[in-house]
């Protein structure tokens, strides 16, 4: 798990491209928010947001857009990705699983091979959902680089508020 390229498709590809700062680095003129350093970071973050908002999304093929996150990147971020994955496994309530079961699927990935693809797909679904949420919120009333950057705080504040963090 998390040692191969991962390809996003359709709008999600667009979204991730939009959110990644790499895009701006590669092309300064790109109309991208670039608010998260790399796509792989987003790849790790998005699922959490998706799960938090219970937002799942299937792979999109409304466009031919693709975005590949390279294996090297993914391997470099394994820890984060594992963390994210486990967390999703543990915190997800969309199944009838018990806590133990959740723990299993979170920590015993090796033994849960047949479940692994399923679990990974769940992860990706939430990831896509998270991407959508991010995209939606970062493009809400924001069109310029500055807007996007300012949106960071807004998004964080919103999230904070939605989940009563820090209270």
């Amino acid at each position, binding site marked *: 798990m998390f040692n191969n390229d991962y390809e996003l498709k359709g709008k999600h590809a667009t979204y991730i491209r939009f959110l990644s*700062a790499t895009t701006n680095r590669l092309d300064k003129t790109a109309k991208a928010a*670039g*608010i*998260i*350093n*790399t796509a792989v*970071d987003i790849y*790790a*973050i998005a699922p*959490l*947001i998706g*799960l*938090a908002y219970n937002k799942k999304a299937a792979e999109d093929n409304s466009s031919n857009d693709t975005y590949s996150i390279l294996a090297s990147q993914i391997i470099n971020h394994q820890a*984060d990705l594992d*963390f*994210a994955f*486990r*967390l*999703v496994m*543990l*915190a997800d*309530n969309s199944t009838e699983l*018990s*806590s*133990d079961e*959740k*723990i299993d699927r*979170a*920590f*015993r990935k*090796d*033994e849960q091979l047949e479940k692994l693809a399923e679990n990974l797909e769940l992860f990706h679904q939430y990831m896509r959902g*998270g991407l959508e949420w991010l995209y939606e919120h970062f493009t809400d009333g924001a069109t310029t*680089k*500055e807007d996007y*950057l*300012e949106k*960071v*705080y807004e998004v*964080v504040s919103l*999230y*904070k508020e939605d*989940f009563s*963090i*820090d209270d």
Partner: protein
Amino acid sequence: MIIKSIALNNFRQYKGAQPPILFSTDKEKNVTVILGVNTSGKTTLIQAFEWCLYEKVNFKTRDVLNIEVARAMGLYTSQEVYVEIVLIHEDKEFTIRRTQKFTKSDADKIKAERSVLKIQYKEDNGEQQAVPSYECENTINKILPEALSDYFFFDGERIADINNRGDVVAAVRGLMGLDVIGEAKDRLDPHKASSVTAKFSKELDVGSDQKNNKLKNDLTDAQTRLDTLNIRKNEVKDEIEYYERRKEELSAQILANKDEKHNQDKKLSLEKDIIQITKNIENTESRIVKDFTAGAIKFFATPLIHRAMKVIDEAKYSGEGIPHMRSAAIDFILERKKCICGCDLSKNEGARENILFEQSLLPPQHLGTILHTTKDTYKRYLKEAQSFCETILENHTEYRNNRNYLGEKMDELKNVSAKIQGNIDVAKIEQDYQKNEKTLKDKRELLLKISSDIGATEKEIAEIEKTIERLTIVSDKNERLRKCIAYAKAVYEWLKAGYDKQEKEVKERLLESVNNIFEKMYHGKRHVTINDRYQIVLMTLLDNDEVKTDESKGLEAVKNFSFISGLVDLARQKAHKGNDVTEDEDIPVNTEPYPLVMDAPFSNADEIHINNISRIIPEIAEQVILMVMQKDWEYARPALEDKIGCSYFIEKINNSDTNSVIRRIM
């Protein structure tokens, strides 16, 4: 001049006061004869004249006093000698008395005091007027100058010398008044260094005219220079004015553009700020992304973590497996088929399952531990989420602020830029201002220099003018001198002409006179010529040639006598003609007739000559006073008898040489 009388007192051999000898003043009988034997005192009479008039003696002073009187003087007593002459000069009657006091100081010594000359003249009203003592000598000189006295107090003994003496020239000149003219002429002679004319000439400043011209040129130059300087001064003043106006303009511009400059400066400053802020913003942007990225996972995980922790807590697996038991250890146990407790696992399936189950709790790490660790991690992440928020806020705020700040600055920049005219280069205006200031300073210095030069030139002009004035004064002085010289020369020329003419005349007349006299005496057989030195040369007609002849003493005497007579005659003629030296009639010249006082005029002549001379004498002088020896008189008397006005006799008392008296005969 006519001599009226002479009175003697104790004068030489005339002991005591003698009755005055009254001389004939008659025009016809104009001869006075004084007879006497030799050494009786005839010569003394002449001497008396000379002593009285000039204090002139050819004997020792002591001998003035009569010897007998002198001897008879008692100790400490005094005696007086005097001679008093009464004469008529220029229609005035003069009384001239010379007195000398003698005192016997001891038995043989007689002290003579200075003689005292007293002169009086009779005024028109008959009153006697004294001539001041300091004027006496002058007065006598006016009447009968001493230099001439030799010729009119005629000493027969000395006569031989007369003609040969150099001062005949002087005498003649004196007589004719030529000496006066001669002196006057000499006084004005430009060729004589001591003359008035020469002295004037010496004072002429010869160079001044040349100097004057040079100075005039210098003055013109200096004035031209001054004009140029003044023009330049005005030019520079105008220039200064221009530059000052320019200064004001530039100042105004600078002032007006102070804002511009300010704005330009501000713009630059703002631009700098903007760059800085932009940089800051970029940094902030980077940080936002970085920090966001860095903390996002943990942050976004937060709500999930809570859920996850709940799950973990709910899980039964929260119990721990055998602590520090490793799966590998259990593998080992399984392999050895013997449990730690010693149970044989190959036979106990349940035990084996249990062990397997325990092992399942330990894939590499004990799950509980993992969970524990995970929970710790979660807890940590939760904490970090807090500071994340703060950081995000910070960054956001900073970003916001910077952006606002940037916005402000850019607005400001926009405003300022709008104010900037842009095409005004304030820096250049300031440069121009500085350049102008320098030019102004230079011009002011130049003005000072020009003013100083003007001052110096004005001073120079004043100096030159002063010098010119001085030279002009000299020139004026020169002018004056030249005029003086001209006058002096004119008078000189006139005197010279007069002199030459007169001298010629004198010579001619003298010659004529003398020849006349000679003629009368020698009836044409001889006559004289007079050379330049007024020396008479006897010429005898010999075979139609005139030759200089030697002269006998008698002839010599006659010659001399003729000369004297000629002079006297000339004087008389002049007097009567009222002739004067000058061409014009304005200057009256008094050449009086002089009396002839002759002492032994015949002493060297023989009787024929005596006779001849005697005949002439009365005709050549106004008044003749003859002192003759008895023996000579015999020869003269016949010729003179009719002319005798008075006659005296000098008698020796007791044949003494020291006591004579004068007795009147006729």
